[in-house]
């Protein structure tokens, strides 16, 4: 029996590749010191945004893809995180790092409260109720002027340390993807999939579906809130329109769907692809950027419903694999 051995070696190969990738990302900012390296501040900023999108898309995918509750207002939790950091730093004079746990807790608690009401709803009703929650929070942020600064927004103390934000985003992305990968294999992950496939069935098997749903929702929301906290400090300015940006949830959905909905690697691949396209292809089509994004969303959903990850095992993929250098024997 050579099968276990082989499996182990393939897994080992993958893990090594992954570690090399993470290590490469980790030393990337250091290359700035070496003369005219490839990396500069704007590249580093763009990479940071990409890493944040990886985290956000993974969170979105965790709720929408693995649990099957398609959340069209997930950016609401991003906004709660951003405003927690913004308000604590400007109104209460807190330093940055202590605001992070507060933002995370607020986002998670909000997810439990909102989810308690909306996760009774099925299918599209949940999606739109969340979209409404998102739109509602934006209006509340606009109206609650004494706290949020209303329409004119809040200016945070500027802190332009790009590598710091890069490393924060990198650590979070790695930890979150690892967490979801692990959760997916635990009993909790199985229960999530059970709920996605057949919720009454899961309930009949004795799963407390509401607890599982709220748990998953709170984890994803907490992580999204943390990204919001960091984003607010990095951007040094927040107002209702840039924090509760319509396209933020769309980006998460797009990255997940392009990569492969309901897979762990999908959102990572999708985010990387989106940023690559944005840098390389769309730099010259600034005005058309969102139009192209909308068209890609439609095209991907219609033509490759399982995203890039769905191409594995397709005739096209095996054709490509044959062209690449490969071992003749296993």
């Amino acid at each position, binding site marked *: 029996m050579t099968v276990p051995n082989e499996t182990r070696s393939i897994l080992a190969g993958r893990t090594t590749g992954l570690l090399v990738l993470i290590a490469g990302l980790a030393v990337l900012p250091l290359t700035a010191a070496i003369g005219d390296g490839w990396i500069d501040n704007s590249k580093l900023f763009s990479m940071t945004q990409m890493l944040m999108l990886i985290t956000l898309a993974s969170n979105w995918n965790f709720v*929408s893809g693995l649990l099957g509750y398609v959340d069209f207002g997930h950016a609401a939790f991003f906004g709660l995180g951003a405003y927690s950091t913004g308000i604590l730093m400007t109104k209460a004079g807190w330093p940055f790092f202590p605001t992070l746990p507060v933002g995370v807790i607020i986002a998670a608690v909000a997810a439990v409260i909102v989810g308690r009401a909306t996760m009774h709803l099925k299918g599209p*009703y949940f999606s739109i*109720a969340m*979209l409404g929650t998102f739109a509602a929070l934006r209006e*509340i942020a606009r109206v609650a002027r004494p706290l949020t600064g209303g329409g004119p927004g809040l200016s945070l103390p500027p802190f332009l340390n790009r590598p710091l934000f890069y490393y924060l985003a990198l650590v979070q992305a790695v930890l979150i993807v690892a967490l979801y990968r692990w959760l997916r294999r635990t009993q909790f992950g199985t229960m999530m999939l059970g709920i996605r496939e057949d919720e009454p069935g899961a309930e009949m098997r004795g799963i407390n579906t509401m607890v599982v749903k709220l748990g998953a929702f709170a984890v994803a929301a907490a992580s999204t809130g943390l990204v919001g906290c960091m984003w607010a400090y990095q951007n040094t300015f927040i107002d209702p329109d840039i924090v509760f940006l319509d396209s933020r949830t769309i980006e998460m959905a797009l990255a997940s769907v392009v990569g492969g909905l309901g897979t762990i690697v999908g959102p990572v691949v999708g985010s990387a692809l989106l940023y690559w396209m944005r840098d390389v292809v769309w730099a010259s089509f600034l005005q*058309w950027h969102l139009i192209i994004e909308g068209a890609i969303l439609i095209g991907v*959903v219609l033509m490759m419903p399982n995203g890039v990850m769905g191409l594995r095992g397709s005739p096209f993929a095996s054709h490509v694999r044959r062209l690449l250098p490969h071992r003749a024997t296993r």
Partner: protein
Amino acid sequence: MSELLQALVNLTMLGGFYALMVMGFSLIWGVMGVINLAHGEFVLMGSYLTWVLNRHLGWEPFAALIVVVPVMFTFGYLVQRVLINRIIDRHHLVSLLVTYGLAILIANGLKLVFTGTPRSLTTALGGFWRIGAVTIPVVKSYDLVIALLMMTALSLLLRRSRLGRSVRAAAQNRQAARMVGVDVRAVFAVTFGIGVALTGAAGTLFGLTHPIAPFAGLPLTLRAFAITTMAGLGNIRGALLGSLALAAVEVIIATYVPGIGTNLGLVATFVVLVGILIVRPQGLFGGLAPMEER
């Protein structure tokens, strides 16, 4: 007292507009099971089309309906044939994502063509009716009349005509309708066309009372969703009542809570909506199709 009377008049007119605005959304959802997230953008397309005729050819906005309705019908028919027909039998996530993509595409396309500057229509029908202490803007009163006329027309079409019977049959049971000889695909395409045409007409009315901006679509879509879910799918009378209810919430907030726009009414609406959905998932008044998960 006069404040209350004025609020009642305002909510009637706002409710009339919402009712027409929601009709297309409700019809498409009820018949095809597709939640059209590009609905608000379809409204805006009607508004911008009216604006072009109004601004560059000097047409009276109400006259523009003669062009808006057929153009939007054709547009809706084509969108259904090219896009929606492919996703009609698939998971609801697919139609949500596709129409969301369409919404982004249209909103940003509108911004590209018409820029982000808010536009407004010019009409000869300015001024007010005054009855006692109550003032009624002339434009809004015509808005209400046109909305009611169009709803009556749709209601007659659905109830009395052969096409309407096919539409209702296809909504109730696709398979059975197909079996008795209804060309379901053609019926769906025409229904989508009618829905989008009504939506475009609502866009003309929208432009008369609101500034037209490329990203004004999402709140409209959300209102349409809230009203439709409250009322029951494809239920015209229910939609009218739901629209009045939503308008009442918004007008009361705008009248009695100072310093807050109607957008906070949206917040209240969603709280009410989620409550209703939990208690009565089939909507308040029942509808064209059973509200099952699709």
